[in-house]
């Protein structure tokens, strides 16, 4: 184990919320460290972004540790992190959890075929250099991310024949009207619409089967009682986002259906542990930044500065309510997977095998569902939604680690 580090404020996650919190804490003279498992700060939305917001973090004086994965908090004030195959311990007085969100996938036949990717997943790889010019990409699932991803792909030369949004037109219209109360969102929506000219945006439409032998060749979409099959190179699919609450749960913070419970200072039910952005409830980048600012100042003990940012935060938060109502998942999607459809991709567990079990524990014991490397991050939300099994407790390590690195820490 390498040398021990100590910080006043440890920020877990270097996306919009973590960057905002890290800047606020470091600029308030707290010894601050921001860690992230990705090779560069920015999170998903600012991936590959080298603009002001990312450089401000570096200039804030915060210690930024990338390619660093937080795997355990064996006691309060201690974090074990993994860098490559080496682990080390960081001690902290206050923590800001800014672990973001992941995509939600609803299993359907063919969704395990290569080139069926997350909507954000394909965008991330495209930002990393995966060539998409001239490729046909069907974008499907639910939520505003589909529009952003489709616009990005088109800008970079992809052909997007259709965006299939499962939500109904009526709900989307009501959401559209609610945007009138949020002028910046309205402008963003108008810009996306302009970028997406020529692409069909179909509401009440969803994928029912992906086809292909070695990889994806086409996808069948369902709408208004009819199906049609669209040839494509990629299917970019995601049914909204799921909060990454594993670290908060490990620390004993209360988590309810909406996410990690926080007070006006963004402090969780565990004193000294703060939370900002998507883990407190899916709401998007503006809320993440606003919450991160409050959390960072509060964690650094700069209460006046934190309080001065309450109003800005509370005004952007109102947007999230309409968002989650408009894109609520329709029950029809529960019928997409058949008994042969794989639900747990790590252990190849089908829905048919899971239906014979009665809860997570029983499912794990008999099928190994949720026990592979992703530790249920992909299948967990799907199983919860499909079968109604409530989530189980989180245990360390938060991510799979080489066995040698664990034995070093426990020495």
């Amino acid at each position, binding site marked *: 184990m390498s040398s021990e580090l100590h910080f006043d404020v440890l920020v877990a996650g270097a996306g919009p919320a973590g960057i905002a919190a890290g800047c606020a804490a470091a600029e308030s003279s707290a010894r601050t460290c921001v860690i992230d498992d990705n*090779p560069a700060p920015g999170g998903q939305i600012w991936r590959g972004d080298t603009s002001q917001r990312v450089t401000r973090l570096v200039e804030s004086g915060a210690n930024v540790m990338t390619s660093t994965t937080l795997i355990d908090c064996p006691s309060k004030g201690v974090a074990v992190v993994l860098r490559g195959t080496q682990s080390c311990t960081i001690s902290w007085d206050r923590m800001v959890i800014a672990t973001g969100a*992941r995509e939600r996938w609803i299993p359907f036949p063919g969704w395990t075929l290569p080139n069926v990717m997350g909507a954000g997943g394909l965008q991330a790889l495209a930002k990393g*250099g995966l060539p998409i010019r001239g490729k046909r990409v069907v974008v499907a699932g639910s939520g505003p991310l589909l529009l952003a991803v489709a616009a990005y792909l088109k800008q970079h030369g992809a052909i997007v024949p259709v965006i299939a949004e499962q939500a109904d037109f009526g709900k989307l219209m009501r959401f559209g009207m609610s945007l009138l109360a949020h002028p910046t969102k309205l402008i963003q929506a108008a810009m996306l619409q302009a970028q997406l000219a020529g692409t069909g945006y179909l509401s009440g439409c969803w994928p029912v089967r992906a086809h292909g032998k*070695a990889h*994806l060749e086409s996808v069948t979409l369902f709408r208004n009682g009819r199906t049609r099959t669209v040839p494509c190179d990629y299917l970019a699919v995601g049914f909204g986002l799921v909060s990454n609450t594993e670290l908060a749960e490990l620390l004993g913070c209360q988590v309810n259906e909406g996410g990690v419970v926080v007070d006006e200072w963004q402090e969780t039910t565990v004193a000294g542990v703060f939370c900002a952005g998507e883990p407190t409830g899916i709401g998007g980048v503006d809320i993440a930044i606003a919450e991160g600012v409050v959390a960072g100042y509060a964690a650094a003990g700069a209460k006046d500065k934190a309080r001065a940012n309450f109003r800005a935060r509370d005004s952007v938060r109102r947007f999230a309510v309409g968002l989650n109502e408009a894109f609520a998942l329709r029950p029809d999607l529960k019928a997409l997977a058949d008994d042969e459809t794989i639900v747990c*991709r790590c252990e190849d567990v089908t829905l048919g095998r899971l239906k014979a079990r009665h809860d997570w524990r029983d499912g794990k014991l008999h099928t190994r569902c949720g026990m592979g490397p*992703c530790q249920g*991050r992909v299948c967990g939300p799907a199983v919860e939604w499909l079968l109604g099994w409530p989530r189980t407790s989180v245990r360390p390590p938060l991510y799979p680690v080489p066995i040698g690195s664990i034995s070093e820490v426990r020495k």
Partner: protein
Amino acid sequence: MPETVSLTINGRKISVAAGTPVAVAALLAGPTAALRRSAHGGARGPLCGMGICYECRVTIDGVSQTKSCQTPCRDGMVVVTDEF
């Protein structure tokens, strides 16, 4: 930092822009869109692109189960994916 780096993927040499994730380089190297075989032998490629799903895991410089989407390519790297 050099503008391009050269690495070996399944014995094949490939040059990519510095900073390219190994997952992208491996898909470029081909010949398939799959990087690994599942527990029951199914072909799998990247899903989440952000270090959550582990569907892109490969062997990098002898270290197995490495998430290729979160690992930038480096000069001289040796990458092995499952065979197809």
